[in-house]
């Protein structure tokens, strides 16, 4: 009873363009999604979410998860039906026509094109904490130069890099959570794990929770990027992509909830100077400079690079799909030569 039951695989829609190579498994998709979402993401927005939510940081993340669940579910449904490298662009084009499709693609390109800028800025914030006194602008130039160089020479970065980056981030987060708990039970913050980061009537303001939730939504962005790999799954079962999208959402939600709970109880009563650097200030004070330094170095090096790579994979797919339908100028389509192998920024694995 599927409305779109008879839709051909979009990659066969055009004879001029070769299709993407199908090499990815469910596990690859999960890792790609987690690398994109970046488990460290929650640390960058910590200060802002804390301030906006008035301290109800866990509530904000829980609500954001619920919000994103509907979207993840819809993505899953659409990738089952219309697997398209263009993601929302492909879905909207199929359901609503070429013009709306173009607008959808255009709007997600805003997201995907600015994402690297966001990565540069947060890496610069980390370096700022490491080596104070240098303007963040200088760091951004250095960082973007480095990434450009890496992309130029090391485009065939393997899925292994994603995997090790995710693993390393999880290890650091585990250490952070453990030591935060120790600090809390030594009397810092709330002095114990409490329900205050989840709900406290005197802290609750609908408006501020709204604002905080919309910030938290940002931390989840990336699970949707899995849909851009729809044309590259190994298995013939298209539902793999949808399952991976929902899976990444739940995995990151669980992590964010636990992490923000612990950090929320630790943050209570702590005065944040610069919300962008809140995590460094907090860890410096509660645990020790060595850990905030490690986090900053991690953030400034592999975390940024690790999230920059999957972003390029995603944006290349959308441009590929839009270029395939001649919805973007040929110049843009040329940036990523469409060979049998996935495009230049892709996670083509050894």
């Amino acid at each position, binding site marked *: 009873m599927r409305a779109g039951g008879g839709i051909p695989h979009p990659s066969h829609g055009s004879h001029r363009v070769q299709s993407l190579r199908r090499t990815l498994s469910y596990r690859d998709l999960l890792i790609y999604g987690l690398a994109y979402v970046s488990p460290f993401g929650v640390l960058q927005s910590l200060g802002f979410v804390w301030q906006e939510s008035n301290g109800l940081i866990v509530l904000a993340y829980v609500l954001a998860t619920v919000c994103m669940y509907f979207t993840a579910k819809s993505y899953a449904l659409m990738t089952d039906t219309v697997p398209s490298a263009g*993601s929302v662009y492909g879905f909207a084009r199929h359901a609503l026509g070429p013009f709306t499709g173009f607008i959808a693609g255009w709007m997600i390109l805003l997201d995907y094109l600015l994402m690297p800028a966001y990565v540069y800025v947060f890496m610069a914030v980390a370096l700022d904490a490491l080596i104070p006194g240098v303007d963040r602008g200088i760091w951004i130039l250095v960082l973007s130069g480095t990434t450009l160089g890496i992309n130029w020479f090391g485009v065939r970065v393997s899925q292994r890099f994603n995997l090790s980056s995710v693993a390393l981030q999880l290890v650091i987060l585990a250490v952070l959570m453990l030591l935060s708990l120790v600090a809390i039970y030594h009397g810092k913050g709330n002095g114990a794990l409490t329900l205050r980061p989840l709900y406290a009537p005197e802290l609750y303001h609908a408006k501020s929770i709204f604002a905080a939730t919309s910030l938290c939504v940002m931390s989840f962005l990336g699970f949707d990027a899995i849909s851009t790999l729809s044309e590259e799954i190994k298995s013939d079962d298209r539902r793999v992509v949808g399952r991976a999208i929902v899976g990444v959402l739940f995995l990151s939600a669980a992590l964010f909830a636990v992490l923000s709970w612990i950090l929320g109880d630790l943050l209570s009563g702590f005065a944040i100077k610069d919300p962008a650097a809140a995590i460094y200030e907090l860890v410096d004070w509660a645990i020790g400079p060595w850990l905030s330094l490690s986090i900053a170095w991690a953030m400034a090096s592999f975390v940024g690079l690790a999230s920059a790579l999957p972003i390029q994979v995603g944006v290349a797919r959308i441009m590929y799909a839009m270029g395939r339908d*001649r919805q973007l100028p040929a110049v843009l389509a040329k940036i990523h030569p469409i060979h049998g192998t996935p495009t230049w920024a892709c996670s083509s694995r050894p």
Partner: protein
Amino acid sequence: MISIAVALATRYHLDELTSIINFGALSGFLLLHVSIIVLFWFKGRSGRWVVHLLVPVAGIVVVLAVLSGMSSLAMTLGLSWLIVGFVYGTVLTKRRRTELTI
């Protein structure tokens, strides 16, 4: 290049940059949900109202709620991008039509 310029411009406004990115993603989500309702509920006359109507409608409500809480700067920049897209898209469609008639 765009990324570097934007990064430089927003180096002390991480939260604003976040909102603009959010705007792009959320409008994509919006169209995703609309696509589902149109494709399955209306065109497909599906009876599965939970997945094909309730979930996307809930998704739309959520997206609109998050959008409404956005800073006016992010909103303005996001809408400008949308308008540029509209103009470009219209030109694109027109050109395609003339190409077809030729």
